[in-house]
């Protein structure tokens, strides 16, 4: 009886250790491309003449970033993340930096984790106000004149938060606050990759600020790489 108990405990411990080692060894990957079909709205040029210090930073006029596309119908700035199946992760030590440069947000879409430090920097010679329009988290609005220290904050609940500057109405961005570390923001070529996924069933969600949200189920076993593509319906307006 006792021997049986010990052996059961040992077996369970072994399975746990194996699972742990497996997770450490990298696990599987979900990767793919985000694309659009149809005709997306043409990016509109932004008139920065009211803010000469920003206007002179751009040789060619800057265009709106609500839809950013690349060759072969690729769609950039899509947040691809594991919305179900993965446990919540502790926040990483490094801060997520949101820069204001040339009266634009860099990056346009910033993804980071719940309770991860957010650092907002003003690299311009003009005052910005940072106004993240949170609904689930707390909404705040702070002025950041040139040369002042970064604004440090964090969010304690997952949410997609539109960010704007009320002084410069063309400035729009997004904070994507996510529960775990498995996320990726698609690049200009639409490419994304979610590595280090332990074996299991996952829901992969892709979010775009103009075209909404899509989900796909994916099962990862071992260290395989699964390809998941997301195609968004583009709207011409």
């Amino acid at each position, binding site marked *: 009886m006792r021997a049986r108990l010990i052996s059961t405990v040992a077996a369970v411990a072994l399975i746990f250790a194996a699972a742990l080692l497996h997770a450490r060894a990298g696990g599987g990957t979900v990767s793919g491309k985000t694309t659009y079909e149809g005709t997306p709205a043409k990016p509109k040029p932004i008139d920065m003449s*009211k803010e000469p210090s920003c206007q002179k930073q751009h040789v060619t006029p800057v265009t709106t970033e609500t839809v950013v596309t690349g060759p072969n119908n690729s769609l950039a700035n899509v947040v691809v993340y594991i919305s179900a199946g993965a446990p919540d992760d502790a926040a990483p030590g490094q801060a997520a930096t949101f820069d204001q440069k040339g009266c634009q947000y860099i990056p346009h879409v910033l993804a980071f984790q719940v309770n991860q430090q957010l650092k907002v920097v003003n690299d311009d010679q*003009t*005052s910005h*106000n*940072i*106004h993240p*329009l949170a*609904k689930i988290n*707390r*909404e*705040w*609005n*702070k*002025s*950041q*004149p040139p040369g*002042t*220290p970064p*604004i440090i904050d964090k969010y304690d609940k997952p949410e997609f938060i539109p960010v704007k500057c*009320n*002084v*410069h*109405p063309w400035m729009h961005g997004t904070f994507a606050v996510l529960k775990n570390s498995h996320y990726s923001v698609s690049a200009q070529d639409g490419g994304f990759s979610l590595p280090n996924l332990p074996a299991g069933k996952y829901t992969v969600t892709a979010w775009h600020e103009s075209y909404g949200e899509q989900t796909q189920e994916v099962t990862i076993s071992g260290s395989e790489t699964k390809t998941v593509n997301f195609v968004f319906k583009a709207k011409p307006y």
Partner: protein
Amino acid sequence: MSAHKIAKSLLLATMVLLIIPTLSVAQQPESHMGKLTGHADSGKQLYYRFCWGCHGFRGDGSGENWLPTGSYPTMPYLNIQPRNFDAAVFKCRSTPTGTLPTDEDLYNSVGRGFVMTNMPSWLSLTSQQRADLVAFIKSFSRRFKSEKPGDPIHVPAETKLTVESIKHGQELFQKLECWKCHGPEGRGDGPSASTLTDSNDQPIRPYNFAVGSRFKCGVTNQDLYKIFMTGLDGTPMPSFADVIKPEDAWDLVHFLRTLQITNKTPELALWESTKEGAEQIASRKPYGTPTGSGVKQ
């Protein structure tokens, strides 16, 4: 078990059952302002008599005056959407941006009303009734159950009013780019004014200093100090608490007072007594220019 024992345990059970509801009543939301304690159950009666026509049945700011029934497309009777208590985002606070207001902040707002909106001053109600309303208003949002109000921003003693402080305040008005929205003369007609929207995407006008004497959140210099230090949450007006030192903040207050050309403040009188100030005031647009002129909405 004897009949006596059964009766005893029954009595005990009845007592327990009687105590439970009393306990839950004791946990009803309250508001506390100094010696005043407001009770939500009394506030509820008042709310559904005086407030819900604008603020709505559920306190979400969509009362009949905002969304009148029977008209399509809906044409609100009000030009500014009433506060949504469910979101618990409030303009007039003593607490930092992004935090809940204190009970006293809400109590003061109910009594003061909001200048240039349809929210009147409710001084017609007793102080106890206003306190009761605050307790009930808080029950609309879960935030008041899970979060505590922020620590009020410390307002240090006002610095001495001098010509130098007004001049320095004017520099700050330029440097912090207050004029981008409020306009060079504080008339609410700056270059960004026409683009402004509140957090519900409703158009909103920056404050016009040239009309009247009342601000959104009070009339005193302390109130004005608090407005730009806390920011008016839910509007484009940000908090400057991290970027203005307290002594500079008072200089800015002194300058802002000189923009109130229809309100004969000590600041305006002192500024007008100097050559530079008199010239500046004389060169301003004539009194009577429409509020926020040039603002298309």
